[in-house]
């Protein structure tokens, strides 16, 4: 049986190269993300740091753990989806081979064993190549992380021995899981199918309907829940909408593809042929569209959501700031300057906070803002009353997640634990910020000595802006509030772009390779079909044109359904921003989305041309004569 596996591999190399590549890259991506996540989570601060510097270091390490956690989740999702769908497709493409095996006396058990044997072999090759590829991917991801400042300088991904086991589990496990479901179905192939034109079989099984509807229902549930989830929870739920919707749509693609294909104009003989092929070969069309739906859905959804949340954060910041100038200094304290009517000095510092008690106790480093409550209220309209914020009390900041008014938290500073009541809270924001507002005088001065301080200055009526600015320049960096808001907006957008690049960059590339894979696998089995078309009187260019038209149509459908999945995320974005900030915000990076859509067309078009060109190289008669 293994001999047959081996020789089967040689015969249908495109199928197997595609499947192996999907395993190799999936393993590489998951391995790299996992190693980086572990490295960031176990990162020790370098020796010789002051306590404040150590806190800063841990704070930035915690942020990178969160970022890498999302990257790992996303890589795993893609690996599961692409590997399992590629393997299922390769099985579907070999229906006739398997029927032949049944015809000469192969039992269902044999078919299953053959397919599982192949999956093991391909999974093994994919894992063996994926592990070294993962080392290269890790070097690349580390450079991105360091370059964008998401990890402390000198951060390196560390190799762990056990990762070999984890990667083997990912590669072999996913290959096997992908094949097991498909193999059960394939084993039911009737021997007689070997004598007929390979019948696609029923594509939409009850199981597929059920799973598809399950994910569709999940999508709707996420859209409904997102605005209820609060600022942080809502954003996290929103990001998952397009993942869920893309899976639902790719499962339901066999129903949707022919429906959308009807909209494509059937002009000329090539148009007619392409349209007929699309509707007839539902499995092939759906399998080619699936990775595209996921790629477009996820990337459109994520970058759209990220840009919209950044825009909502900017608008929120603008509404919540009432000042003329912003002064940036180091350490607390702000001098009295003539012409200044009022100012709110805000010093930001990380604090180690424990919430909950006993088993549920949870310690994290949170960002605290040292404020003068009355001044803060004036400089930030809409923040509510902070009158109770004095002495040993604290208030919930705009980015609090783990506590609210009425709770107590334990803060660790000046060498001991302090139990502090949360007596007030400001409205939560989309854009984040500090988790905790602390009154002046609570934290020890030496912790704040090096902390960045931002002071919002309101000028006295009739004061000369230039003169006050000049006077304040002695203290720190002075910026007009409009310029400061603009720079803040740019910084937020750039951070959100960089995060998207780290989370989606390599994953998107992987999904794109999945698309190429599907096109190549689909064309690999079409030699005879092309030959028949040419024997009927079509010229080679006409056949190529029909194939190109067909792949463009599948791309249109894939991009359309992907955009539909992303639209689910946009709905959730509108609901969430409306619930949190009061204004529904949607801001889409059109140029990036256009580049991706055009790129998808180029890639599928070129791949389809190349594969159909190579499939039509031989004279048609030589392919039609004998079946083998």
């Amino acid at each position, binding site marked *: *049986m293994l*001999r*047959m596996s081996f*020789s*089967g591999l*040689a*015969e*249908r190399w495109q199928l197997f190269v595609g499947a192996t590549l999907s395993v190799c890259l999936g393993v590489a991506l998951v391995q790299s993300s996992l190693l980086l996540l572990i490295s960031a989570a176990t990162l020790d601060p370098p020796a010789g740091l002051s306590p404040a510097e150590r806190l800063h270091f841990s704070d930035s390490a915690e942020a990178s753990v969160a970022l890498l956690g999302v990257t790992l989740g996303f890589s795993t999702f893609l690996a599961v989806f692409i590997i399992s769908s590629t393997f299922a497709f390769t099985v579907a493409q070999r229906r006739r*081979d398997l029927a*032949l*095996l*049944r*015809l*000469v*006396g*192969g*039992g*269902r058990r*044999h078919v299953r064993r053959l397919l599982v044997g192949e999956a093991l072999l391909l999974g093994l090759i994919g894992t063996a190549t994926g592990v070294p590829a993962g080392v290269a991917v890790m070097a690349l991801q580390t450079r991105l992380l360091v370059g964008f400042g998401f990890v402390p300088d000198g951060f390196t991904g560390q190799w762990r021995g056990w990762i070999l086991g984890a990667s083997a589990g990912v590669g072999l496990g996913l290959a096997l899981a992908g094949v097991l479901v498909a193999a059960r179905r394939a084993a039911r192939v*009737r*021997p*007689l199918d*070997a*004598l007929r034109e390979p019948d696609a079989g029923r594509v939409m099984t009850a199981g597929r309907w059920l799973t598809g509807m399950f994910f569709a229902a999940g999508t709707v549930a996420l859209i409904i829940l997102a605005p209820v989830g609060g600022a942080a929870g809502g954003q996290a739920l929103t990001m998952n909408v397009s993942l869920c919707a893309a899976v639902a749509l790719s499962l339901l693609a066999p129903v949707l593809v022919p429906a959308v294909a009807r909209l494509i104009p059937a002009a000329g003989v090539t148009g007619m042929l392409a349209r007929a092929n699309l509707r007839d070969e539902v499995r092939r069309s759906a399998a080619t569209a699936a990775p595209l739906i996921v790629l477009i859905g996820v990337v459109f959804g994520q970058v759209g959501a990220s840009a919209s949340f950044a825009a909502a954060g900017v608008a929120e910041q603008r509404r919540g700031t009432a000042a003329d100038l912003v002064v940036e200094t180091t350490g607390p304290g702000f001098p009295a300057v003539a012409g200044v009517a009022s100012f709110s000095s805000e010093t930001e510092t990380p604090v180690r906070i424990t919430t909950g008690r006993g088993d549920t106790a949870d310690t994290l480093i949170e960002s605290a803002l040292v404020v003068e409550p009355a001044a803060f209220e004036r400089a930030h309209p809409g923040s509510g009353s902070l009158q109770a914020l004095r002495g040993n009390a604290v208030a919930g900041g705009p980015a609090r997640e783990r506590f609210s008014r009425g709770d107590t938290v334990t803060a660790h500073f000046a060498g001991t634990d302090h139990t502090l009541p949360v007596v007030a809270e400001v409205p939560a924001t989309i854009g984040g910020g500090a988790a905790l507002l602390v009154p002046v005088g609570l934290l020890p001065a030496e912790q704040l000595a090096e902390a960045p301080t931002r002071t919002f200055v309101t000028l006295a009526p009739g004061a000369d802006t230039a003169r006050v600015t000049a006077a304040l320049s002695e203290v720190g960096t002075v910026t007009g509030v409009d310029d400061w808001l603009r720079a803040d907006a740019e910084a937020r957008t750039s951070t959100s772009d960089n995060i998207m690049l780290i989370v989606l960059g390599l994953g998107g590339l992987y999904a794109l390779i999945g698309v190429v894979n599907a096109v190549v696998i689909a064309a690999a089995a079409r030699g005879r079909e092309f030959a028949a078309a040419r024997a009927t009187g079509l010229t080679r260019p006409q056949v190529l044109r029909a194939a190109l038209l067909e792949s463009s149509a599948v791309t249109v459908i894939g991009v359309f359904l992907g955009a539909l999945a992303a639209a689910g995320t946009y709905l959730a974005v509108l609901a969430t921003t409306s619930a949190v900030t009061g204004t529904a915000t949607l801001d889409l990076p059109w140029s990036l989305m256009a580049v991706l859509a055009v790129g998808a067309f180029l890639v599928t078009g070129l791949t389809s041309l190349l594969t159909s060109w190579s499939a039509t190289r031989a004279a048609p008669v030589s392919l039609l*004569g*004998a*079946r*083998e």
Partner: protein
Amino acid sequence: MTTTPTPTTTAVALRGVSRGYGRGATAVRAVDDVDVEFRRGTWTAVMGPSGSGKSTLLHLAAGLERADSGRVLLGDTDITAASDNELTALRRTRIGFVFQSFNLIGSLSAEQNVALPLRLARRRPGRAQVRQALDAVGLGDRARHRPRELSGGQQQRVAIARAMVTAPEVLFADEPTGALDSTAARTVLDLLRAMADRGQSIVMVTHDPAAAARADGVLFLRDGRLVDHLAGAGAREVADRLVALER
């Protein structure tokens, strides 16, 4: 040889077998209440115009399709309601197939193709046994060739060797010469004749009167019903009978 001699003289029997396709207005009765016995040790050809149901008859007799009604017997075994596993086991041991499209596995050598049914039956394929099967079809020197390196006639002979390696009770052949030129066809027919003379039961569907004339008897089918029978007829007589049917 694992076949045990059975007392009956019938290799395959169909009793009141019907098989239809489609529903409502498009319904077709491909095989309509057919009673037929294929005798052990004889070569029977089944002929008829296109769409007369001859391939369906063959598939029903071989257990590749299920009858809507009636019974199918292979020797003493009633295979009408056999499970998929039972039918699979039958294909491995008691039934051999040869088709118009040779249906060899392209990635395997001639030798490996021939050994496949034995391997599937978990019998260690003896080198000699495989070689003998290939020698019997005159291809002992082509054992290591892939199907695509062989001519059509040679591929069909490999397919016959593959069907015969398990020493089946019945060999089913569907247009075995349909894709071959006349010289290659003659070689294949000579081979089948020699097998039948040694006592092999063969059921063959064909279009070709010359092929049918080599069989011991010819059955004629029209519109799913058995309409005629000839024994020991020549090609001319078979052709005339066929033309008369198509009129």
